């Protein structure tokens, strides 16, 4: 029963686009999806005929609860003018986008299709924060976890306490991730925050001063993040600035068979590795300082691609919470367990470091419209490998290999993809 672990034929990305991420009370899912589709369409260098799209995979986590809209795929297809094309919704909580892309890859690798549209969307901001907690908790185990009061941030907070107890990780280690990702996100005009923590902190100080109120004289970002009024606890040890925001947004990718990729662009990005695995709900796991499904999915992707963790030059990881980024770096094999926080402190994962992570700003700063997130991660790698990431473009001309890490809930669904510019 050994699996072959190879694609039947190669798959390349020739277009990638996203809507602006944020909170938009004048837009519903389909409006965001159209915006992302238009942006993707404009990104295909030599153009393409949308009639040639043979099917769509639409990723969305919970439009049922967020918008009272189920059966999203045909509605999205219709919205972008593809009404009669086969359209299939894919759901894997926060990993939905990565799973939809994997399904699209398989449709092409099997020979069934030559061109596939992948589109992800989530419209989250209609609900109050507590209702969003209810909805996100549905991605956990509602039989055994949710009835004990666990929220989604709460589950990641519990992972954080296990990591702290085993490795001596500190709350400041989590805060450093937020600072780094906001620094990157300040250079991403499509992101929700588009501001560094220093900018947010200075704006707050200025507002206080204008109102003639007493304001704390934050010297450095860490002073601000340690201020319980500015950065309140959500689920200890995680505070507001450890959590990705509630976001509306969409992202689209255009996938084609490798042999026709150059009809659309001279710079296709090839998907050379793909891995997916499932895991127990968090509370049943033997070790809570690592996510086994991520390790298994990563191993599958590395083997398919024939590359090692050290070869990867640019990475987007699923930092729904700052503690998640620490686990991701260790589970991907970038750093030994317990040592990733030191690498962050030394700037290794910063944009000018040796192992840049979340150049887009990550979920933390760019925003986390659940169903769109995985595709927006891929879009960042697509842009970076093609040298099109604008103000946040990584220095050095020879970027060749990138990776995306997506997890649903606390990793019960995990998917890893590796990309190559040839």
């Amino acid at each position: 029963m050994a699996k072959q672990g190879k694609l039947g034929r190669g798959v390349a990305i020739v277009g990638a686009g996203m809507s602006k991420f944020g909170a938009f009370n004048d837009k519903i899912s389909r409006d965001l999806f159209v915006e992302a589709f238009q942006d993707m369409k404009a990104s295909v260098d030599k153009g393409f005929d949308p009639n040639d799209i043979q099917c769509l995979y639409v990723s969305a986590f919970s439009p049922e609860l967020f918008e009272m809209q189920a059966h999203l795929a045909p509605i999205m297809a219709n919205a972008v003018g593809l009404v009669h094309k086969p359209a299939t919704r894919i759901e894997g909580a926060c990993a939905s986008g990565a799973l939809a892309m994997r399904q699209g890859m398989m449709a092409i690798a099997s020979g069934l299709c030559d061109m596939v549209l992948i589109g992800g969307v989530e419209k989250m901001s209609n609900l109050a924060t507590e209702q969003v907690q209810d909805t996100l908790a549905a991605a956990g185990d509602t039989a055994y976890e949710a009835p004990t009061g666990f929220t989604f941030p709460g589950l990641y907070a519990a992972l954080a306490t296990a990591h702290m107890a085993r490795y001596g990780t500190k709350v400041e280690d989590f805060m450093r991730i937020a600072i780094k990702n906001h620094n990157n996100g300040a250079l991403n005009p499509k992101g929700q925050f588009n501001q560094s923590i220093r900018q947010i902190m200075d704006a707050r100080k200025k507002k206080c001063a204008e109102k003639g109120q007493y304001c704390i004289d934050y010297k450095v970002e860490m002073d601000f993040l340690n201020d319980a009024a500015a950065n309140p606890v959500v689920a200890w040890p995680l505070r507001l600035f450890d959590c990705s925001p509630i976001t509306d947004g969409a992202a689209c990718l255009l996938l084609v068979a490798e042999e026709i990729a150059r009809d659309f662009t001279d710079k296709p990005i090839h998907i050379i590795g793909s891995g997916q695995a499932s895991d127990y709900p968090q509370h049943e796991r033997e070790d809570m300082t690592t996510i086994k499904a991520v390790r298994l999915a990563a191993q599958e992707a590395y083997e398919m691609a024939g590359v090692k963790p050290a070869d990867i030059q640019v990475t987007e990881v699923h930092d729904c919470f700052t503690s998640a980024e620490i686990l991701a770096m260790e589970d991907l094999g970038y750093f030994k367990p317990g040592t990733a926080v030191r690498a962050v402190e030394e700037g290794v994962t910063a944009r000018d470091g040796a192992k840049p992570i979340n150049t887009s700003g990550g979920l933390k700063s760019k925003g986390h419209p659940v169903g769109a997130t995985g595709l927006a991660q891929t879009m960042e790698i697509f842009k970076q490998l093609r040298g099109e990431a604008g103000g946040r473009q990584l220095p050095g001309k020879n970027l060749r290999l990138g990776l995306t890490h997506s997890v649903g809930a606390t990793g019960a669904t995990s998917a890893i993809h590796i990309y190559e510019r040839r």
Partner: protein
Amino acid sequence: MEQKTLITSTNFNVFLAQKRLMASKCRKCGALFLPPRAICPTCWESELEWVELSGKGKLAAFTCISITPTWMAAAGYGRNNPYCSGIIQTTEGPKIACRIEGVDARDPESIKIGTLVEVDIRERTQGDKKIPYLAFKVA
């Protein structure tokens, strides 16, 4: 009676209402499962039986939650009144999510992983229903 009770999460909660923490056990390999499973994933044995646990364990992970789901907010929890949820490793081995009682959720740094705990099944009121929930308290 236990032998004939189907291994389901509904029945786990029926036992919980009787203040009993029940796991399932594989008759072939002896493996113990909490939450209870109906199938042993090692030997695919489907003849599993209910067994009652000692109710003793230690804290494996926890959090003190300030931004709550709606139903916990309705019960009076929130920013000014956080609560502690955690994961317990039972003395018998398996882990499970639960509420942690007998700790100060306003002072999370006082709560230590590895703390010995014992089962303390409680109930909450929802409308006119009483719903049991699994909790452990500091032993």
